[in-house]
């Protein structure tokens, strides 16, 4: 009888133990994979987070939400701020309020770019903006034209570097998109956008954007069912700013206390996010570590228990001429059977569990893409789990090598 058949028969005829072992291993591997995915995703945002300007103005919400929404295109469609505020700041005009308070001095804005997020298309974010997008500072990792031009006319779009390969489009192609508005799941009817330009790869979230001019974006949201705003279609989601050093406090005071908007200083919010993610990562790593330790101990315990219960069987096999090497192979083959089935089960559990967990975590994590969580990571996880399970067969093998066949066969 060959060793594959013998190991298969052993596992099949000890079905309850085998199933319990596979279930516990499968769930443990799935849990580790999900936690690893969370860890990778929470880390990946720092790689893709754009690093332009030093402040962002958005509707009142958390600073981290503004940071991730504007520079990583995360989360749902954000709330709006009036375009007037942007225009005033851009024109460096004096800002007057109804109580006669006026602001002009105290800060200096050297760069300002409008952003209006107005929908998603196959994982890419639809953004209304203007040509200042191509002049962001610092220029490193900033969007730059590769082909074509910035969309000047209605219905034109400039696409991020990831888009042409993902969707097989080129300059001149048409795509059909839907607009979405803040706080609603209703989309506009599909409308065409003609690709007029392609950006160079930046390795940042810019690669995941589809950029049209502000007029096109604002027209699109204005005709989306349910859209209503006191500012009409003249709204923005964010504007990216570069404020000269020294003027931040004065500017923050103006925006936060006297307008409907809120300012988020990029470095400060990044630092907060890193602290938050860092403590979460530590917790995740701790849980992953505990789970791994528990899984390894479970596998070891299972394998030890199995070999304890099989001392007579292994002695009989030795007496029948199976060498220690044969029996080592037998235990490894059983480990591979259990490992392979557990990993397949883990993949299924992970597929079911992952969306629920990611949904629970909510918009604080970027969407899973092949870039931030490539398939090879799952393959590597599976391979590691298999190797770990096979390695867990080693201590029982050591026990096997020390077995006294004579004593065992005599039932002493």
């Amino acid at each position, binding site marked *: *009888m060959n060793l594959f058949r*013998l190991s298969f*028969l*052993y596992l099949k*005829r*000890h079905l309850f133990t085998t199933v319990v072992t596979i279930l516990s291993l499968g769930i443990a591997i799935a849990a580790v994979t999900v936690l690893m995915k969370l860890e990778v995703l929470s880390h990946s945002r720092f790689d893709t987070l754009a690093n332009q300007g030093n402040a962002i103005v958005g509707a009142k919400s958390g600073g981290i939400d503004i940071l991730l929404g504007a520079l990583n295109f995360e989360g749902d469609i954000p709330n709006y701020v009036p375009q007037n505020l942007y225009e005033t700041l851009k024109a460096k005009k004096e800002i007057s309020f109804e109580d006669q308070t006026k602001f002009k001095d105290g800060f200096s804005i050297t760069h300002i770019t409008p952003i209006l997020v107005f929908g998603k298309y196959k994982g890419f974010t639809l953004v209304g903006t203007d040509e200042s997008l191509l002049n962001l500072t610092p220029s490193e990792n900033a969007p730059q034209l590769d082909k074509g031009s910035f969309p000047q006319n209605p219905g034109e779009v400039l696409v991020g570097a990831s888009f042409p390969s993902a969707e097989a489009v080129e300059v001149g192609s048409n795509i059909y998109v839907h607009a979405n508005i803040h706080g609603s799941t209703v989309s506009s009817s599909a409308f065409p956008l003609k690709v007029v330009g392609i950006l160079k790869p930046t390795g940042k979230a810019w690669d995941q954007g589809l950029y049209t001019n502000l007029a096109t974006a604002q027209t699109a949201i204005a005709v989306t069912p349910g859209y209503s705003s006191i500012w009409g279609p003249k709204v923005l989601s964010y504007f990216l700013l570069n404020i000269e050093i020294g003027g931040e406090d004065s500017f923050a005071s103006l925006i936060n206390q006297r307008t409907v908007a809120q300012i988020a200083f990029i470095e400060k919010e990044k630092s907060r996010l890193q602290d938050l993610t860092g403590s979460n990562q530590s917790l995740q790593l701790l849980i992953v570590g505990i789970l791994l330790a528990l899984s390894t101990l479970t596998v070891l315990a299972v394998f030890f228990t199995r070999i304890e219960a099989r001392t*007579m*069987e292994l*002695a*009989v*096999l*030795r*007496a*029948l*001429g*199976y*060498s*220690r*090497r*044969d029996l080592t192979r037998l235990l490894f083959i059983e480990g591979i059977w259990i490992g392979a089935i557990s990993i397949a089960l883990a993949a299924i559990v992970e597929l079911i569990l992952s969306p629920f967990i990611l949904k629970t975590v909510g918009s604080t994590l970027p969407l899973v893409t092949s870039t931030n969580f490539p398939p090879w990571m799952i393959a590597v996880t599976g391979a590691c789990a298999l190797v770990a399970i096979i390695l867990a067969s080693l201590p029982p093998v050591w026990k096997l090598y020390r077995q006294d*066949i*004579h004593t065992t*066969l*005599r*039932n002493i």
Partner: protein
Amino acid sequence: MELRLRNIKTAFFNIKDLHIASGERLLIKGPSGTGKTTLLHLLAGLYLPSSGEVLWDKTDISTLSENQVSHFRKSKMSLIFQNLNLLPYLTALENIELGGASGQLAQEKLNQVGLAEKSVARTQSLSLGEQQRVAVARSLAQSQEVLLADEPTSSLDDVNAEQVTNLLFNGSSKQSIIMVSHDHRVEKFFTRIVDMKEIMA
């Protein structure tokens, strides 16, 4: 195949010289606890003496690796254990296949010991006598140069004991059979009968 034990010292007994010629049928008798099973294990290379030589065809097995001993045992010896030692989760047929026999040969041997109907029964569901016959069928299927049998008829009635012993001795005349047994019914099949006291130094 020729077997020899020389100047053996173990925790249970000492043996100065025991030679078993190729094709010899040797019955070892003796009271319980005198080391008969240990002697069989010594001959099978399953138990190593403190000192002395276990020779298989003039080769001292202490000079062989564990793999070589296992290979040698698998290719030259078949064993029937005192405790039968069948794997309870395997069927009667699979237990015979465990010794290296094909499914067809295993079924044939099972038929010979009168258990044709029990081929798919798990051995744990068989009576002691039936298990003993499965163990015998396994050794028959192996059909090696040396058969080491430890009380193979102890749980069998007269008819089955006679039938099983006939089957065991029906093999090649070159096959050496070394059996430990208290069963007087089997004595007539042996060319040499020795008592453990005579063997021990």
